[in-house]
């Protein structure tokens, strides 16, 4: 007989009570792991989305900054236009490393969408400088436009998949009744660019009837520390606003901050309830076994022996609860991701709930500490029982 066996056998003989307590711990741990996983995943995905923009700054026509943030990340929606002489003025600034003008237009296609219920197709007029800012954009097939004003298209990976087009095929733009020839198809980038149909900037301005108009100018500076100064100088330009990466990140993180605060409080409450649940279960079990504890003391058990047995029971419950919770969280992360995506106003494209082994290990250690904390009081109560009083308590 070992203390572990005594503890384990006591738990295993009370299956329902033990399972329920373990389930309580497991749910708390699963909630905790999912929320921390969400925290890590969301920030990482957002950073990666922003990094993949390739810009430090985006100059857009004056409007709502939230709209601009969305525009930056989604590449479209709620469009306002500015004159392209803004671009001509800015481009000369010596602090600029790379700069690219763009004109985004979305066109409703009644036959579009996965089930033919209609969808917006996103068109973006670009110049070759666009590729300088996005060095990871590689051609899967084909290549760049034959001329800066050609009626040609380069399709994002997903756009080509959905429309089932390959190089040489034609793409019809509804509403403006124009046909483009596919010159190239990009490889998958994991960004919003995958769903966009690109065309030469001049062609886009002509086809959509927006001569000399732009929706945005993407800028990468030589030195990232000059962002604030550069932004300041652009305040003098009328009719535009500058959105920096830091702002976008901040704006979006602000949007989810309250949701995170709420979720973290729920996790803390879940943990608190689990600790109370475990303490209560073990304490109840100690009171029920008062005579057993008394007889163990009569048989030579010290206060430390009894403490150890009761503590082991609590820690065993928490270990099983922690393991089940970790498995539950890992297995259910895609479900949680789905739920979070449906709730959040904006979700980045990467994995939202990122559960790494380190997180699972930390959660497990936290559960162990929780077990130690929850078990201390019942174990102390049991160890301090006097043998005679404990043995005679039920008589």
């Amino acid at each position, binding site marked *: 007989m070992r203390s572990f*066996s005594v503890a384990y056998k006591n738990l295993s003989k009370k299956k329902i009570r033990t399972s329920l307590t373990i389930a309580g711990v497991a749910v708390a741990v699963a909630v905790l792991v999912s929320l921390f996983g969400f925290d890590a995943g969301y920030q990482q995905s957002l950073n990666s989305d922003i990094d993949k923009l390739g810009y430090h700054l985006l100059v857009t026509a004056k409007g709502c900054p939230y709209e601009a943030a969305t525009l930056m990340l989604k590449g479209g929606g709620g469009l306002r236009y500015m004159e392209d002489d803004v671009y001509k003025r800015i481009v000369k600034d010596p602090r600029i490393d790379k700069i690219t003008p763009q004109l985004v237009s979305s066109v409703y296609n009644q036959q579009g969408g996965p089930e033919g219920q209609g969808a917006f197709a996103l068109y973006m007029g670009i110049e070759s400088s666009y590729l300088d800012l996005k060095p990871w954009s590689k051609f899967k097939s084909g290549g760049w436009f034959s001329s800066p004003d050609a009626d040609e298209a380069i399709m994002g990976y997903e756009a080509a998949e959905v429309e089932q087009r390959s190089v040489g095929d034609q793409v019809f733009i509804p509403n403006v009744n124009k046909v483009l020839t596919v010159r190239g198809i990009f490889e998958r980038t994991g960004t919003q660019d995958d769903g966009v149909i690109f065309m030469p900037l001049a062609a886009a301005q002509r086809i959509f009837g927006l001569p000399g108009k732009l929706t945005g100018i993407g800028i990468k500076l030589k030195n990232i520390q000059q962002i604030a100064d550069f932004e300041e100088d652009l305040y003098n330009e009328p009719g535009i606003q500058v959105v920096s990466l830091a702002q976008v990140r901040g704006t979006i993180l602000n949007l989810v901050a309250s949701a995170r605060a709420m979720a973290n409080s729920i996790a803390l409450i879940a943990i608190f309830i689990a600790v109370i649940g475990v303490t209560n279960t073990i304490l109840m079990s100690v009171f029920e076994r008062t005579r057993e504890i008394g007889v163990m003391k009569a048989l030579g058990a010290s206060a430390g022996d009894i403490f150890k047995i009761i503590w082991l029971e609590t820690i065993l419950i928490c270990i099983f609860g922690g393991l089940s919770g970790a498995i539950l969280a890992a297995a259910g992360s895609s479900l949680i991701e789905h739920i979070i995506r449906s709730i959040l106003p904006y979700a980045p494209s990467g994995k939202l709930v990122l559960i790494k082994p380190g997180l699972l290990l930390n959660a497990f250690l936290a559960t162990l500490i929780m077990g130690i904390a929850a078990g201390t009081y019942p174990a102390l109560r049991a160890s301090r029982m006097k043998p*005679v009083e404990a043995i005679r308590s039920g008589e």
Partner: protein
Amino acid sequence: MNEILIDARKLTKVYDLIAEKIYAVRDIDLEVRSGDFIAVMGPSGSGKTTLLDSLGCLTTINAGSLTVMGKDVSRAKESALVSMRRRFLGFVFQDFLLIPTLTAIENVLLPLLFARIPQDRKKAARLLERVGLAKRINHLPKELSGGEKQRVAIARALIASPKVLFGDEPTGNLDSKTSQEIFDIFADLNKNDNLTIVLTTHNPALGSQTKKLIFLKDGRIMPH
């Protein structure tokens, strides 16, 4: 004369209640010598169990002195009493008090865990065989009859090779036939193993079969 294992002088145990002090045992002088087989008898509330608890180091005493195995435990702390119980004393209770989640042999092995003695399954099995339970060593207490449970309890009390075996009404919950069988085990241990035994009983027929009878009344030893 045999060696004195337990020596009580003016042993007194008081329960200090709010309204009054109750002298459960008072001024008891008693020697337990090696090989003794003592029955403590007396009406309910006469102090039998308290005397046994005190002699068995299950509780502290309030006045007088108590020496167990040559060590004065009159003012000993719980930790010292634990050590005495582990090394020298075995207990059997009226309600058997087996651990319900452990099998018969696991119950028998339990005191070795507390005494930090390596688990000796062979010895445990041998003891269970000796008390007549060879075939039921892997049964849980709920699968055993009252008499069988008490046999397990006796084996459990013997596993750490105690010097004195205490029985608090060990036959109190058994029918007369089983009572005699259990008593015979005690008698056999005393006779063949020279094990020192102190037990309490209400049953004069059993008490008369011991070597020494003590009558208690109102916490004091009565002459007889």
